[in-house]
């Protein structure tokens, strides 16, 4: 201990006149914050917008070509006149998907991500300015087709829906655990092709999914022949109702 000032260290400081000057030492700062702190904050902000408007927001994720846009087209057609839907489309290039959504009868906002492999909360927030959230019942965010990166970025959504098409193979949940663990609903898509594919077993996919300790429901869907669509629409309506029971559907009847 320093006799002059009681400092625990003899070195590292000097006395100049009446003042104690501490020598240069590195300063350790405990941060304990999420790595994606800024994104998380933006996502929380988005969620406030969504909740205030009473709109259910679903983040739709899958590999490219699993049938996200086809499912959305069928969903928009099935809910026409009952619920108002809009879609935020994330794509590396092209407006093709947005065009398909508009043709199906819903508003679509395209985010062209360039080389980015995922959407983040700031991109979604920027897209919100093109939407009248209060007029919507459900907003889908069609994420970039990718089973890796989108799982890490909260967008402010209420629910994550992850699609797995039968043509991809039933072991995808085992290969991409981070993505499938984040799912609030697992949709097995293109079930009309199951027979042609031959070796896709839904129960095996479900077993791999449960091995991620995820209790979320699984639905078998075909946007082409309509299989499972009633259950899917039922899930959406139930989640929409859970969000804000006070706002009923009569406004759109």
């Amino acid at each position: 201990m320093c006799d002059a000032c009681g400092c625990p260290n003899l070195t590292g400081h000097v006395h100049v006149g009446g003042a104690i000057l501490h020598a240069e030492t590195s300063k350790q700062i405990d941060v304990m914050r999420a790595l994606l702190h800024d994104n998380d904050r933006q996502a929380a902000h988005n969620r406030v917008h969504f909740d205030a408007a009473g709109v259910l927001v679903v983040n739709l994720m899958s590999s490219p070509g699993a049938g996200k846009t086809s499912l959305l087209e069928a969903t928009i057609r099935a809910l026409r006149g009952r619920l108002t839907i809009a879609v935020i489309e994330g794509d590396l290039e092209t407006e093709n998907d947005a065009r398909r959504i508009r043709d199906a009868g819903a508003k679509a906002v395209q985010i062209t991500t360039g080389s980015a492999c995922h959407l983040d909360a700031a991109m979604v927030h920027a897209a919100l300015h093109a939407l009248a959230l209060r007029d919507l019942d459900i907003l889908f965010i069609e994420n970039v087709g990718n089973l890796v990166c989108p799982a890490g970025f909260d967008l402010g959504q209420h629910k994550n829906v992850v699609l797995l098409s039968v043509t991809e193979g039933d072991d995808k949940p085992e290969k991409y655990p981070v993505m499938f663990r984040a799912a609030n609903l697992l949709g097995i898509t293109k079930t009309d092709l199951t027979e042609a594919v031959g070796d896709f077993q839904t129960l095996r996919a479900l077993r791999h999914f449960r091995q991620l300790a995820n209790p979320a429901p699984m639905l078998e869907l075909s946007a082409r022949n309509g299989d499972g669509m009633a259950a899917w629409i039922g899930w959406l309506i139930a989640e929409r109702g859970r969000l804000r029971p006070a706002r009923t559907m009569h406004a759109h009847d």
Partner: protein
Amino acid sequence: MHELAVCQSILAQAAAIAAANNADRVERITLRIGRLAGIEPGLLRTAFPLVAYGTCCEAAILCIETAAIDVECRLCGTTRDVAPNRLLCGSCGTWRVTVRGGDEMRLESLELAPVPAKEFSDV
């Protein structure tokens, strides 16, 4: 791929904290990343210098602590470290487990370079 975005987020936070503490250099950045976080430490180390170049973190040591996956069985109470795609009870095999750890992705601490104490050179 998204490791680059994660690096940018780390850099932005580190730069803001350094500025708030009047430090012009960050010497060490300590992260804690769980095996369920979906972030590859190796890729993060590769991406970091690209993002840090020309910033206050350019010379910083990136220190990554990895966290094991810790599941607790809701049926029999067993706790165990498991693989990311086998979040099952190691004892009874059920998937009805609670994941208590392993999905951390946290900026734990920073070590900031000392602010040059001008007074010292005057002594």
